[in-house]
């Protein structure tokens, strides 16, 4: 087992109704970055949770420094030097940044019982300095944006002096700037001899950061390839079992004539005079850096947050005070955090899909479940939701499939104006492609789409027109034919 720091052999795991892993292999050398990729639900997170003691394996062996280990809880793994940044944020919102990072390892005064907050904050500041992150250790997590929370997670994992560090989609909520910071950190860690398992759906990152790529599909190990000598196309086809090609959008702006949504002078605690319009059949992209205010615009239009300003739908001014008003005016909203704002996790796929459209299935307030099931099955098949049945609880689906359930909800509702906030966050390339095609076909059917994304290639790939935001204002508008990454970035950093 020469030189390997970690070796996982024939790992299997079954959840009720789902065989999540079968005979999966994985090995890791000191100081390397191993990319672990696979479609949604391939079992990546599950494998890592087994490695870190959160789940117990059904079969197989784990060797760490040539010794067999079987961690039964996260602490044991941490003590061995194995640390993980989870796909889902795992922070205590009411505690401060420093308190979160050093939870369980607080600097203490006498009796090992009293806290030393001064030292705590100093340690955090030192850590941030070392990692070159700018964060105030005394801020409560609940006051931070998702992106900054993700940075806290990363800082926390790095504070452990781990020998093996697992990053489960660390960049899903980050923009380029922070991704760069992260990659610098990763390179620095590699030099320190730390091994990293890196999970991501962003193919372009793998080339930049990884040494080898392990591909999984449907709970099985497929292959491991050296990054340098491998074509990304090849990886993708291993992953999805077929070829996929990414195109570039070329659309004719004159095809859209009918304005369906007009937003004038939207203002609230963060937004400043946001005005734009959306036309029938158009995909309007929203680009910007973290905290640019795109989500705020979406939430305001949808009635989730309060605002002042004018919203005109189909030529008439409408009053939107709460989401139900927006939905009644034909707006659907897919939020950037599906677990918190999009899904009833304990409920079934079909119940989630139908929740917004229940009146369709109701006679004198009695619900007809058979029709719901039929339609839910139709949409989940159409979107290729990977689930044993529409009766499965959404909680048990993988991230990407959960996202598809939310999309299905609005398709079933037949909303004319669809707001997609980071629609492909945490979704694998195969599924991404499907979602792109879906958005396009929706636009073709005459739906109007407002699409927020932090991935510039995605914005460029899909948008007929692009609005760029910074600091709560719209800083520019680009037609697809004029747009490229550089021009977007210029507008995204433009100040007033």
């Amino acid at each position: 087992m020469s030189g390997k720091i970690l070796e996982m052999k024939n790992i299997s795991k079954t959840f009720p109704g789902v065989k999540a892993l079968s005979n999966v292999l994985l090995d890791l050398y000191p100081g390397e970055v191993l990319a672990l990729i696979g479609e949604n639900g391939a079992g990546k997170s599950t494998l890592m949770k087994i490695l870190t003691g959160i789940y117990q394996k059904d079969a197989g062996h784990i060797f760490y420094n040539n010794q067999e280990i079987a961690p039964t809880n996260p602490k044991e793994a941490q003590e061995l030097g194995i640390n993980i940044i989870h796909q889902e944020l795992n922070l205590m919102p009411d505690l401060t940044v420093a308190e979160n990072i050093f939870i369980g390892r607080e600097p203490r005064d006498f009796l090992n019982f009293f806290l030393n907050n001064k030292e705590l904050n100093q340690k955090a500041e030192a850590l941030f300095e070392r990692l070159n992150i700018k964060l105030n250790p005394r801020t409560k997590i609940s006051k931070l944006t998702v992106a900054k929370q993700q940075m806290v997670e990363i800082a926390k994992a790095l504070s452990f002096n781990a020998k093996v560090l697992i990053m489960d989609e660390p960049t899903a909520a980050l923009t380029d700037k922070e991704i760069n910071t992260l990659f610098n950190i990763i390179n620095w860690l590699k030099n320190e001899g730390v091994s990293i398992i890196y999970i991501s759906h962003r193919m372009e990152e793998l080339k930049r950061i990884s040494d080898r790529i392990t591909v999984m599909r449907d709970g099985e190990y497929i292959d491991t390839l050296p990054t340098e000598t491998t074509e990304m196309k090849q990886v993708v086809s291993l992953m999805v079992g077929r070829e996929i090609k990414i195109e570039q959008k070329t659309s004719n702006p004159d095809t859209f004539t009918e304005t369906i949504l007009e937003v004038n002078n939207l203002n609230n605690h963060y937004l400043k005079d946001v005005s734009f319009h959306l036309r029938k059949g158009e995909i309007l992209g929203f680009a910007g850096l973290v905290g640019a205010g795109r989500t705020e615009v979406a939430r305001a239009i949808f009635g989730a947050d309060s605002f002042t300003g004018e919203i005109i739908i189909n030529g008439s001014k409408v009053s939107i005070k709460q989401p139900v008003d927006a939905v009644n005016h034909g707006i659907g909203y897919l939020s950037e955090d599906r677990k918190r704002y999009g899904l009833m996790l304990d409920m079934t796929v079909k119940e989630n899909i139908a929740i917004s459209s229940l009146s369709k299935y109701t006679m004198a307030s009695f619900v007809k479940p058979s029709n719901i099931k039929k339609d839910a099955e139709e949409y989940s098949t159409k979107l290729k939701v990977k689930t044993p049945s529409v009766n499965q609880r959404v909680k048990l689906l993988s991230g990407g499939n959960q996202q598809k359930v939310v999309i299905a909800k609005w398709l079933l509702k037949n909303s004319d104006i669809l707001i997609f906030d980071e629609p492909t966050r945490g979704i694998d390339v195969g599924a991404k492609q499907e979602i792109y095609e879906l958005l396009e076909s929706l636009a073709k059917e005459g739906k109007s789409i407002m699409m927020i994304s932090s991935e510039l290639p995605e914005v460029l790939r899909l948008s007929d027109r692009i609005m760029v935001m910074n600091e709560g204002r719209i800083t520019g508008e680009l037609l697809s034919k004029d747009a490229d990454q550089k021009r977007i970035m210029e507008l995204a950093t433009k100040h007033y």
Partner: protein
Amino acid sequence: MSVTLISTKTESNKKILSSTEALQQILAFASLIILIIFFSLASENFLSWSNIEGILLSTTVIGILALGTTFVIITGGIDLSIGTGMTLTSVMTGVFIVFLGLPVIMGIIGGILMGALIGFISGFSVSVLKIPPFIATLAMMMIAEGLSLVISGASPIYFSDVEGFNLIALGSISPVLSIPNAVLIFFLMVIIGWILLSKTIVGRYTFSIGSNEEATRLSGINVKKWKMIIYTIAGCFTGVAGVIMASRLNSAQPSLGMGYELEAIAAVVIGGTSLSGGKGSLIGTLIGALIMSVLTNGLRIMSIPQEWQTVVIGLVILLAVYFDMLRKKGE
């Protein structure tokens, strides 16, 4: 191909699912059966028809309260006002019928509406004023307690002169076995509640709100409105319980009711409804309420000293919920 795969999976999963659910109900039911068997062996009087009737009758009030509060608990809320709220509805029934001389049926409707009003106010405090349910309904509990005394002048209102009032609960319209009406009404309320919860849009939203309130709101559901409706429905159940209580005692007793909420909530939880919302069933609540009253009755009929009765009931609640947890974990 993948479609075929999905559909086969669907079939098998459905079976698994429904059998687990069935198992759960069977297990809850099993505890009840075990208790019944135990007590019938311990005392011959336990299974006498008149004792069974007594058990059923003693389940009615707490049972109906528990049914209503099941809705609230499934939304992730809690209702502490049901005990004294019930008292207030029975006092109001007394006011309508005895003080104002309205016809009995008007009094009953008035009492139920009073319950609805209490529920509505709780619902309003919870959804519009955003006061946490525990505290909103705790305040409502105190307000209802005080108002019952104020309105009744702190003395019972007797229905002795109101012909037939007693029969609402204790008469029997059932042709066989002379089951008291109160019991029939209880079963009727189980059915009404069950239909509401599993067949109507109210039920869907009840579960949905309990499962993820914010996501429900962002799905375009008017959560405020539906929460008020749900609390109001629970209030109607409280009202029915109040009327039955009044009829059974042939009087409105203004100082009753405190503590009933905890018994009712215990019944709901024993019945498998989760206090964190999103999960629950009225059949479970029915079984939970029966477990509570069988237990109380059985211990009494065995002449277990009263202080030990309390201890035993406490332990049984712990055990019942513990096994329920185990079961859910195994799921």
